[in-house]
């Protein structure tokens, strides 16, 4: 079941939350909507779910090419997972998961036995079968979020929408749950969109990343594409730390300071440019090796982590962050 959003706008008073946003999520994909807080990524998700409605006169939402914009949330068959779980606190875990089946009109309601079967198989799927008779307040954050997911899946949703699903969890649980969600998605293949402000989460988990800023989609692509071919400085910056410099472009070469670097794609273009280098893209040598290089002094070293992080200062006073693999770091013996 694909999701399509066509030219949606949404304003809250004078604030333009979404500005002519269009998006296509192909059937069966897991898509991350990534952006800083205030980029209205949650608003977009809530409009897809029917918990919020787009401005009248603006575009529409389609599920599998069927227009659902006029349908209420209850009729859209959407599984929604809230950032703060929103479990029914007066119901047991079992009752929470069964809720979506129990509230169906009598004709469509499964029998008591079927409901029990379904709930238990869902609880097994999220590996919480042994917690069925507990109350939400007795569970850990990670367990609650898995119950919320089971509850959303119980109604056999056509699409699954997750609003910052791991936002309220601590780093370790987050990591575990992230991998678990990826495996779960590979198993059940329901078209899913999740909102996050964590670029690492988006890049690791999603088939496709939608980067949002100021109520607009600034880039859509695979994690590889958005990371290696960012469409704008914002995307580049948001997807990871980057060093920025001012430079000049002349005759197919970029100069920063007086250091020339070949830039073949820009042959025939000239003028002032901005140059971006990610910390892991530098090569550090203790002596000049004849190739174009930038002289800098080491100011700070932090070797605790997957790589050694150095902070350097150039002669012009610019700061540069550099990541060096540990092996290389030891060879350099700084």
């Amino acid at each position, binding site marked *: 079941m694909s999701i399509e959003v066509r030219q949606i706008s949404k304003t809250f008073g004078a604030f333009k939350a979404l500005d002519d946003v269009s998006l296509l999520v192909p059937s069966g994909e897991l898509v991350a909507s990534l952006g800083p807080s205030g980029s209205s990524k949650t608003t977009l998700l809530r409009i897809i*779910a*029917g*918990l919020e409605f787009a401005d009248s006169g603006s575009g529409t939402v389609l599920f599998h090419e069927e227009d659902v914009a006029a349908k*209420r*949330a*209850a*009729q*859209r*068959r*959407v*599984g*929604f997972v*809230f950032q*703060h*779980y*929103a*479990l*029914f*606190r*007066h119901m047991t875990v079992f009752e929470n998961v069964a*809720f*979506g089946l129990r*509230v*169906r009109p009598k004709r469509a309601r499964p029998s008591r036995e079927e409901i029990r079967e379904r709930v238990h198989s869902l609880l097994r799927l999220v590996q919480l079968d042994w917690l069925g008779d507990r109350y*939400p*307040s007795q569970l*850990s*954050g990670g367990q*609650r979020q898995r119950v*919320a997911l089971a*509850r*959303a899946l*119980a*109604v056999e949703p056509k699409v699954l929408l997750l609003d910052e699903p791991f936002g*309220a969890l601590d780093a370790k649980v987050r990591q575990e749950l992230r991998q678990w969600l990826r495996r779960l998605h590979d198993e059940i293949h329901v078209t899913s969109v999740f909102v996050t402000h964590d670029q690492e989460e988006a890049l690791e988990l999603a088939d496709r990343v939608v980067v949002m800023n100021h109520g607009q989609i600034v880039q859509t692509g695979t994690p590889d594409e958005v990371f290696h071919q960012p469409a704008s400085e914002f995307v580049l910056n948001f997807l990871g730390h980057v060093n920025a410099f001012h430079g000049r472009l002349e005759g197919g070469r970029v100069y920063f300071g007086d250091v020339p670097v070949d830039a073949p794609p820009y042959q025939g273009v000239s003028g002032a440019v901005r140059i971006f280098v990610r910390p892991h893209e530098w090569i550090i040598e203790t002596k000049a090796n004849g190739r174009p290089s930038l002289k800098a002094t080491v100011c700070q070293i932090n070797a605790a982590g997957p790589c050694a992080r150095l902070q350097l200062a150039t002669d012009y006073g610019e700061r540069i962050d550099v990541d060096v693999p540990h092996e290389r770091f030891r060879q350099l013996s700084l």
Partner: protein
Amino acid sequence: MAGSIAMTTAPTTARTRNAITEPVLVRILLTLIACGFLVLFLVVPLAAVFAQALKKGVGVYFASLVEVDALAAIRLTLLTAAIALPLNLVFGVAAAWAIAKFEFFGKSLLITLIDLPFAVSPVISGLIYVLLFGLQGLLGPWLAAHDIKVIFAVPGIVLATIFVTFPFIARELIPLMHAQSADEEQAAISLGASGWKTFLRVTLPNIKWGLLYGVILCNARAMGEFGAVSVVSGHIRGLTNTMPLHVEILYNEYNFAAAFAVASLLAMLALVTLALKSIVEWKACRQLQLLDASHGENS
């Protein structure tokens, strides 16, 4: 997480309690003043009510309770409460729901208006209805023409009681519903529940203790209301006399034993209300703690 907070804060509270503890003498003095005050102004009068009621013996006591006019007053009081309570229940829940869950034009005005009966003297509340429905009142001639009696009749008493008691349930629910975000309702709706089912299965269970608390207070006030009802009732024995009015009439006739006998019923109502209130408060408090615990872990 909640556990660790409790553990880290426990020693601190113990320390602060030590730091602010007063000398033994001061503590005893303060406790004595508080208790003495309570005894003088609450326990003694309450005891006096029962003492006076039973002064002429148990026979007179029960006789004055089953006397025709007394029974009529009791019946009218129960009837009034039985009408006012469900109406205020519906109004209170609807108002609290609207105020806590939606943004709309005139919301702050509605909040202010809900407090109005608390702000004005009950006598004024009664007078408003006389001015509206009385013979010289705005709607009086029309009502008289259609032979509908409101003032000096049961409808007036019910109206005045509803007016005086309508803040109780709404006031109790608004902060409670504010504290609970709309997340659970939204989850229910996204799971396919209709608005009515969402209310019955999600909203109502979450507010039930607050609601019950409001109902108890509302009931106590509805049965005990004097001022507003006094203005609109006309004090017709056996017809428009509620229990508090009946007590007043008996007292004015120097029929102390009977007056205090009926008063003792109201006093017992108060005691039962207090007991129920403490039980519900305790339950609600526990629920709130659960809520806090879950919120604490959420954020």
